[in-house]
């Protein structure tokens, strides 16, 4: 397929800093990803993810590891939302790999780069995404 477009919602305190570290460390990762910095993974409304899928082929959401949230429990509350979102999407037949989640700390530049490589490859391996039935190329 054409190069997939991927959106990554990254929390300001951990995962975005992790992406920054990957950049500063000159780690290579695919340019398919578009990063959206959010205050906390708890800020990621399922609607963001569903809407992103209208325009792109895959979504990664990442935040601080449980226990390390800058706001103590933002990611813990987010976990329940993400669990339900993911199970609902799978229930209606959306591939597991299309919408992914991870915990990436500010020190894990390597993990960030590796995750982006994996997500990109995995999304590439899926059938082309219809963008909720409204596929327009690009």
């Amino acid at each position: 397929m054409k190069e997939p477009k991927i959106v990554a919602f990254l929390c300001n305190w951990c995962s975005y800093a992790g992406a920054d570290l990957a950049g500063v460390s000159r780690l290579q990762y695919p340019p398919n990803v578009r990063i959206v910095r959010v205050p906390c993974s708890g800020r990621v409304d399922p609607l963001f993810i569903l809407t992103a899928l209208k325009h792109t082929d895959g979504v990664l959401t990442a935040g601080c590891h449980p226990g390390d949230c800058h706001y103590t429990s933002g990611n813990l509350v987010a976990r329940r939302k993400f669990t339900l979102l993911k199970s609902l999407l799978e229930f209606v037949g959306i591939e597991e790999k299309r919408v992914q989640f991870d915990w990436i700390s500010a020190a894990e530049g390597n993990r960030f780069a590796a995750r982006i490589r994996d997500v990109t490859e995995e999304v590439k391996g899926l059938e082309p995404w219809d963008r909720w039935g409204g596929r327009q190329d690009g």
Partner: protein
Amino acid sequence: MDKCIREIRDKAQELLETGQVEVVIGFTAGTLPGKSTPCFITRGEDCKLLVWDEGCKNNLANYLLKEKRKAAIIIKGCDSRSLVNLLTENQLSRDRVVILGAPCPLTEGCEGCQIKSPVIYDYLVSGKAGKTGEDDFHDVKTFARLSPQERKEYFYKEVSKCIRCYACRNACPACYCRECFVENNLPQWVGKSTQLADNLIFHLTRALHVAGRCVDCGACQRACPMGVDLRILNRKMLLEVKELYQFEAGLKEEQELPLNTYDPGDPEPFLAGGGEA
């Protein structure tokens, strides 16, 4: 049921005539056979118009939200679960409403019904409520066994029937937001037309918004003029919330809604590899 409706009428009349409430929310005969219609009664003598029969399917809890007067409401099991939710979410103050509980009048009942008699009430009308069985989520489990492609096709097909009239949302006692996300325009999250993508996003998001709060009353599905299968999504969420967080909405007066809280040991099945790694 004769005795039941007599008791309801008497109690409603008494509440109005003694000035304990200004309005009684219940059902009266509808214009179509088998369909009773919600009614608002303010005079004692009109209480004879109240009915309690097969046609009383709607979830009346919804009407309390807009009611400014001191009200009495006649409710069955599922409506009472919605009331518990509304109280939990501070949408109602308990002292402004008198709850007249009655056993569910539907002889057949709805599939998967968990409780036919009200969870909370001030007065309970006598009468035996039909039996409820354990809900085995047969429908959800059967659907989950289809291939992903089949599931997606079914979901797309159902949702493409939707004309975005929002009757489902308006009938739902869990959908009381002053401004629903579909009506937001700064930013406009969801397009207002019936494009498939917008329909899909609307229905997935609504299912998530009512997750852990939906009481499976079926009001949304009954309200839908296009026969969209909304229930399958809601029941999927019902099952997940029950299995993962051991929670069923509105069955106990003291409840903490699962999406308002967390447990440090919550499972993380959404992570790659199911959170095992």
